[in-house]
């Protein structure tokens, strides 16, 4: 309970992950640009089952809350938060490995 939030954990450090893995290797990308909270997390919940366990699903979001809420969702639902890529246009891609 004392561990701090870790929104930008580097790829290759999480359990079940291949070190040095290509961070763009996502099985499914969900375009949630323009959606506000909690819509991106709802999309993620609806589609995480579309990838196989161990595969990565990514959420691309412009809403500021997604950067916090996607890692929080992973913690609450038992999935592994892989990391975030800033896409440079106000959007962030948040990568999640299905448990």
């Amino acid at each position, binding site marked *: 309970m004392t561990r*701090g939030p870790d929104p930008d954990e580097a790829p290759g450090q999480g359990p079940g992950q291949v070190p040095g893995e290509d961070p763009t290797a996502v099985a499914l990308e969900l375009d949630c640009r323009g959606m506000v*909270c*909690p819509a991106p997390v709802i999309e993620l919940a609806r589609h995480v089952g579309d990838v196989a366990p161990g595969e990565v699903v990514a959420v691309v979001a412009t809403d*500021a*809350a997604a950067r916090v*809420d996607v890692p*929080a969702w992973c913690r609450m639902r038992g999935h592994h938060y892989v990391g975030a890529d800033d896409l440079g246009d106000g959007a962030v891609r948040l990568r999640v490995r299905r448990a």
Partner: protein
Amino acid sequence: MTDSAPRPAATYLDAASGEPLHPAAREVVLAALERGYADPRRLHGPARDARLLLDNARAVVAECLGVRADEVSFTASGTDAVHRGLLGLLRARARSGDRVVLPRVEHSSVLHALKWAGASAETLEVDRLGRADPAALAAAASAPGTALVALQSANHEVGTRQPVAGLVAALRAGGSDVPVFVDARASAGREDLPPGWAVAAASAHLWGGPAGVGVLLVRHGTGWVSPFPADDRVDERTSGFENVPAALAAAAALRAVVAERVEVDARQRRLVDRIRAAAAAVPDTEVVGDPEDRLAHLVTFSCLYLDGEALVTALDRRGFGVASGSACTASTLEPSHVLAAMGALTHGNVRVSLTAATTEDEVERFVAALPEVVADLRAEVGL
């Protein structure tokens, strides 16, 4: 008002935004409005009356907070007390530097004041409970150019108490004389002030006094230089015509709250434990903040997949008035920086804070309604 006007929530659970006026304050304010209208600086009878009431209010607040009367200033609001406290301390410390060390979970008025002043803020992370690390704050404060450390007594959104005493001990153990500014608004009146503050701020409407009365505390011997134009009033730390009736009502409320607080704290703690357990039992709901080392009256939780505004509106429709830290409920459209700093879910957030008069029956009705409201809203989004 028309028939379609929104009715106020019958069960008000938002004391952390504003505690209802304490009955003791209501009596005093009516009497003080009759007697406390004159300019306390003048030399005639009505002025002496007003001055007497103001001095009396200051003495009562000082006694209740365990400070000296000459350390107490009445300001126009709690926010004004924060501004004057921080900015005046910064000015007095200008020769030391403009660096301010603080945790990410300080109140937005602290962050805004530092930004306005052009201070260089060194913002430190907190743990999952929202608690600052006193050793890390003290270590950061040892860097040259540090004017002050700002640390709230307890967090206003999640209730977690902050280690002010530990911070001061760590600073002094390291030989540092850097002063500590304590935003004590969330806890003042409810709990003793933490020891070791140089400057502190409180707000009367959060303990059951009237709105429009803040309390600025400047410890005897602490350097403080007014950041605003002088006004030649009774108290050099403030400006504007003193609101004597409100100050007196604030003092009366504080005296009553302090006298009742052992009983009120125990009851609120028990009722909040009940809400924490009930919220934790709602599926995909996370209760945040320290479950033990916390304010008695306040609890925050977040429900996955829900819109905070929809949740607040649905609860209001059932007669429960609560607050939310979700982005959609904030004027900034930014999620709560406190929840974000803790890594807590920011959407679907609800803050419940009990008044001194909240009953067990009201809490039972709330915990009965909550799972139904959450289930209804989740059904709407198909989750």
